[in-house]
């Protein structure tokens, strides 16, 4: 792998950019790998990367049904924050946020991490109490957040209307070190670093079956033939249920579409991320100037990557009330992704009933922000059989009643 640097840009400028190489190889699968990761999204690639970097396990294949980063990694609103209520969540999301800070240097790939601050508006008295509680919990967890007044909100976001008739802004939970990153670049950066370690990223290769012997996984059958492995990691978000069925166990998940949209690009007008959970909408401005808008999930199970139309209307209506100046903006694109929701709205990072087979799923609507932390913990779990980061997120927590209940704390804008 050739190192990206200012020098490299200058060198290539002098020779008509003929020296750039492909960021990752696209090899044919080998007969056998130590570890196979199914799913080349952010979480899968991060798992592979930290397996190689932290544990020296580099005989790894990452198998992908579609194209790299084409699932939820490329479909989210790129928000990074760690202001969760429960201790296990705060630990893994804060780990992820802190890894994002120097991920560009670590991967030698510009992921455009922008710690611009994340603001969660309180628009009811119930929310004031909820967010003040979260701010206190975060102080104990070592996550830097603070409760701010409506005046400070207006100072940070001049385009906001804090005196709305129905839902005035009563304050906000402010995480100054949260922000956004370029979502595609996160997947591409990890892929390039994995490929440089000699790992094989095999796209357009669908897993059709999971083979096991004596209760232990021995390989997978794919559209590119049969591949053997010692350990298998399933990191496929919305389709986790289908993959688990191939491996002979079930998951407490339901698949639902979540959608987002962006406006036409406009001049810089808002340099923080604003989330308004009561009215179900959140918004930030991308580097290109588009207002990036996220809304609520559909009311029913589905695997269509588009989402219900009336949710867009509800989301936009709520945001127009909060940001009156966006009322004349044209919307440019809309898309949806399949999120895998668990009962307590927390993910599952766990061993499974099948030996040597590990699962990372259930991130629901909050997957992007957690990519580095999730990969870090999952790699530790797969390499050593135990990780303090993932311990609380095991599959058996539902049977044992050890829920990590973020459904109340996080609401829809997860």
């Amino acid at each position, binding site marked *: 792998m050739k190192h990206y640097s200012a020098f490299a840009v200058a060198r290539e400028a002098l020779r008509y950019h003929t020296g750039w190489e492909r960021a990752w190889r696209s090899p044919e699968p080998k007969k056998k790998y130590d570890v196979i990761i199914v799913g080349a999204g952010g979480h899968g690639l991060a798992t592979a990367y930290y397996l190689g970097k932290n544990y020296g396990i580099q005989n790894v294949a990452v198998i992908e049904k579609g194209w790299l980063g084409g699932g939820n990694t490329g479909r989210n609103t790129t928000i990074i924050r760690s202001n969760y209520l429960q201790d296990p969540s705060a630990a893994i999301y804060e780990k992820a946020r802190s890894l994002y800070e120097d991920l560009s240097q670590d991967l030698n790939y510009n992921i455009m991490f922008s710690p611009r601050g994340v603001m969660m508006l309180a628009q009811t008295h119930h929310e004031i109490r909820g967010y003040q509680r979260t701010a206190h919990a975060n102080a104990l967890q070592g996550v830097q957040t603070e409760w701010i007044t409506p005046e400070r909100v207006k100072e940070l976001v001049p385009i906001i209307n804090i005196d709305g008739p129905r839902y005035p802004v009563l304050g906000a939970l402010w995480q100054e070190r949260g922000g956004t990153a370029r979502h595609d670049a996160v997947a591409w950066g990890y892929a390039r670093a994995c490929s440089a370690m000699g790992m094989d990223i095999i796209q357009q290769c669908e897993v059709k079956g999971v083979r096991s012997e004596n209760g232990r996984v021995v390989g997978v059958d794919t559209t590119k033939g049969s591949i053997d492995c010692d350990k298998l990691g399933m990191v496929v978000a919305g*389709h986790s*249920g*289908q993959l688990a069925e191939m491996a002979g166990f*079930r*998951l*407490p*998940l*339901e*698949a639902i579409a979540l959608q987002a949209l962006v406006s036409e690009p406009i001049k810089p007008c808002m340099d923080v991320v604003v989330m308004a959970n009561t009215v179900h909408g959140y918004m930030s401005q991308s580097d290109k100037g588009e207002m990036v808008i996220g809304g609520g999930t559909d*009311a*029913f*199970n*589905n*695997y*269509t990557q588009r989402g*219900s*139309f*009336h949710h867009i209307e509800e989301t936009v209506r709520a945001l127009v009330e909060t940001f009156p100046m966006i009322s004349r903006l044209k919307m440019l694109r809309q898309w949806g992704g399949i999120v895998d929701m*668990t*009962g307590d709205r927390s993910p599952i990072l766990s061993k499974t009933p099948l030996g040597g087979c590990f699962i990372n799923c259930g991130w629901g609507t909050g997957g992007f922000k957690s990519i580095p932390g999730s990969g870090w913990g999952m790699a530790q779990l797969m390499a050593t059989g135990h990780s303090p980061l993932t311990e609380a997120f095991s599959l058996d927590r*539902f*049977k044992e009643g050890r829920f990590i209940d973020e459904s109340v704390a996080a609401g829809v804008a997860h």
Partner: protein
Amino acid sequence: MLILNCPYCGVDAEESELSGGGEAHLKRFGPGSSDGEFHDYLFMRENPKGVHFERWRHSNGCGKWFHAARCTQTLEVFGTYSAQTTEPPKELKDAITAKRPGWTWREYE
């Protein structure tokens, strides 16, 4: 937009007039059941990529609960039926089989 025919009042109701109620025909477990049964009842859903039976309430209409059969992959609606039943009517199951041969669902009772 999803449009379901309410089997009670006969209205073709749009999605914004309805409230989703999740998977249908759950077998309920309570006191006296095993941990595994209670766990499955609370958390384990069929979550199929295909034929799905589900509960809906005509909340901004007649207010009644009813059932719907729908494909989660294409959003095709196979039909709606009364809430007063523990499994889909045979005609509906036959109609689904004609369109989606090999579809499966757990046992009903």
